C-alpha cells in the first residue's frame, strides 16, 4: 500500500446525504474480476447520459475539478453494499480523502485498506466547507489535521492502527500473518464446528 503523505487539494463537492455504493459504482460494473479500470465508472449514472456522454452539469465533468483529490459529501457516505469496488473507483479516479459528517462502517473499513482517508468532521465544520465547495484544503494525517481554506485547523479522528498502516504503507494482511502462532494456538483449543468439505 502507498504511504499516505500530507497534501493540499481543491475539493469536489457532492452535497447529498446518504450517497450509497450503488451510486459510487453501479452493480453492473461488479462483473469484473479485476481491481483496476473502475475510475471511469465512478458515479457513472450521475456522470453520463443514456448515450454514455458526460453530463456537463455534473461536478466531475467540470474542467476545474480535474485532478482534485478530496471529495466533500453529505452525511452517511458509502452506505449500502460491501463492495470494495467503491473505494477502488474513488482512488482510481484520483481521490485520496472523502470528507463527511459520517461514513457507513463497511465503506470506512474498505477505504482505510486502500489509502483512501475518510475524514469525519462535525456539522459546523461541514457547513463551513459547504460554503466554499471548491475550496482548497490541506490534509495531514500524522497530526490528524484538516486545514480549511479560511486557515482554520480542525482535528479529525482516525483509528490508531489504521493511521499507522496508512502512514507506513503497511498492509494489514502481513501484520495478521505474523500472528500465525496465536492463530494455531486458538485453533488447537477450539475444534472446528463444521467441515464444509464433508
Amino acid at each position, binding site marked *: 500500500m502507498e504511504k499516505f503523505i500530507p497534501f493540499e487539494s481543491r475539493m469536489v463537492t457532492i*452535497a*447529498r*446525504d*446518504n450517497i*450509497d455504493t*450503488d*451510486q459510487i459504482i*453501479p*452493480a*453492473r460494473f*461488479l*462483473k*469484473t*474480476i*479485476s*481491481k483496476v479500470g473502475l475510475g471511469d465508472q465512478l458515479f457513472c*449514472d450521475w456522470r453520463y447520459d*443514456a448515450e454514455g456522454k458526460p453530463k456537463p452539469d455534473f461536478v466531475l465533468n467540470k474542467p476545474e475539478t480535474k485532478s482534485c483529490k478530496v471529495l466533500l459529501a*453529505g*452525511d*452517511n457516505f458509502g*452506505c*449500502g*453494499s*460491501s*463492495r*470494495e469496488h467503491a*473505494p477502488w473507483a474513488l482512488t482510481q479516479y484520483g481521490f485520496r480523502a472523502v470528507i463527511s459528517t*459520517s*461514513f*457507513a*462502517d*463497511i465503506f470506512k*473499513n*474498505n477505504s482505510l*485498506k*486502500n489509502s483512501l482517508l475518510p475524514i469525519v468532521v462535525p456539522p459546523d465544520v461541514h457547513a463551513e466547507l459547504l460554503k466554499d465547495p471548491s475550496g482548497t484544503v490541506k490534509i495531514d494525517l500524522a497530526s490528524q489535521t484538516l486545514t480549511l481554506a479560511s486557515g482554520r485547523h480542525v482535528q479529525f479522528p482516525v*483509528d*490508531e*492502527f489504521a493511521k*499507522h498502516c496508512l502512514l507506513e504503507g503497511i498492509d*494489514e*494482511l502481513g*501484520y*495478521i*500473518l505474523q*500472528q*500465525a502462532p*496465536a*492463530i494455531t494456538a*486458538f*485453533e488447537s483449543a*477450539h475444534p*472446528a*464446528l*463444521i*467441515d*464444509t*468439505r*464433508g
Partner: protein
Amino acid sequence: MSKPRTIIEKIWDNHVVAERAHAPALLYVDLHLVHEVTSPQAFDGLRTRGLKVRRPDLTIATTDHSTPTTPRGLPIVDKIAAAQVERMVQNAKDFGIHCYPLGSDKQGIVHVIGPELGLTQPGMTVVCGDSHTATHGAMGALAFGIGTSEVEHVLATQCLLQKPSKSYQVLVDGALKPGVSAKDIILALIARIGIGGGTGFVFEFCGSAVRALSMEERMTVCNMSIEGGARAGLVAPDDTTYQYLNGRQYAPQGAKWDEAVARWRQLPTDDGATYDKSITIDAASLEPMITFGTNPGMGIPIRGAVPNPSDITDPLERDSLARALVYMDLAPGKPLLGHAINVVFIGSCTNSRISDLRTAASVLKGRKVNPNVRVMVVPGSQQVKEQAQAEGLDKIFRDAGADWREAGCSMCIAMNGDQLQPGEYSVSTSNRNFEGRQGKGGRTFLASPMTAAASAIAGKVSDVRELL
C-alpha cells in the same frame, strides 16, 4: 459472579485470538461464505503472495449475484458474467474449497444456503463479502459483511482485525396483526431510526414478537440490519432455532448435537446486561410498510402519504427527499396506495425462502396477476425451488401468470440480466431501493411478499389486508 454480558459480547469474547496494544483484536471466523463477485481479486491476492486458503473446511462457495435465473441448460449470455462465474469455480478448485456452482442442486443465494444447509450455527462468527451477511444473525451468530481485502485476510488467516461494535437492543413486543409480517418490522425500524441509525452498532432483536417469528422470518429481519446502518443484527437462539437446525446437512449429529445445544443455551444475553442503545417497537401497532423513496429509510405505512420536503428543516435532508421524489416521479402529500406498477419481484436474500413463497402463493392462489404487470418469482436456492415445486407452488405462480425462475439474486441487484427498464416501477421484496439498484432508471417500492403479491394482482400498490 462475572459481569452480565449480551450475546454480542459473549460471541466476541469466544473468538478473540489475540489482543495487542495499539491494534484491533484479532477475531477468529468460524464460517466464511464466498461468492463470485467479491472474491476473484482476493484469490488473485493469495496467488500473488503465494498463500493458501488456511481453512478450506470452514469456507464454502456458491454463485448467485451475476448468475442468471434463466433455465440452467442455457449458456450465460453475458460473457463478462460467464467469466466471473467460471472464475469462482476455478478458484474453488485451485484452493480446495467446496463450491455449490451453477447447476448444483444446492446452489443458491449465499445467505439462503448457509442456514439451509445447517452451516450457520448459533454462537458462530460468520463473514462474507456481502453486506447482507447479517442474515445469518437469525441463527444467533455474529455475522457481518466484509470487503474484498478482508475476504483475502480471512482466506489466508481465518481471522480479521476487528474492534467490538456497540450494542443496540431492538425490543419488539406484542403480536403482529394479520397482513403484517417480519419485513414490515424491519422496514418500520429503518423508517424510524434512518439508514444511518445503526452505524457502529450490532442490533439484538428481542421481545415477544421476535420470539414468535419463525427462523425464516428472523432471517428477513436480520437481513436488513445493514439498511439501518448496523453491520450485524442477531436473535438469540431458542427452541425455534434448534428445531430449524436439527437434522440439517452440516448440523451436529447425535451426542454432538446434545453437547452443542447445551453450549448454545449459554449464549442468550444475561439478565442485567446493558446495551449501548435501545428502541422499543409495538408490534401490534405496525401496519404493512412500503418505501416510496431512494433509500430503505424512506418508508411509510401502506396507507400513509408520501412526505413533503417542505416539512423538513435540515437543508441536505430536505434536498435528499426532494431528489428522491423527482427520481421516483412522485408528488408529496399523496398516498402511494393505488400507484400503478410495471413489475413485481418476489425474491432476494430478504424474502426468497420457502415460507416467503408459500405466503405469496397463498395470496395468488386462484387469482391472476394484472396483465400490465410482469411478475418474477425467484426462489433463493435450488433446494427452495425443489420444495416449492413439491408443494405445487410453482403451478400456483404460473397459473396466476407469474414467471417462475431458477435461484439467484436476480432483480435485487440487476447484474444478471434480470432488471427494470428506465422509468419502470416495481414492488419488490428485496432490500434496496437506491437509484438504479434494480436497473438504471428503475424505481423500486420495497415491501413484504404479501404486499408484493397483492400488488401483482391489482397492478398497483395494494393493501393485502383487503384480500385476507
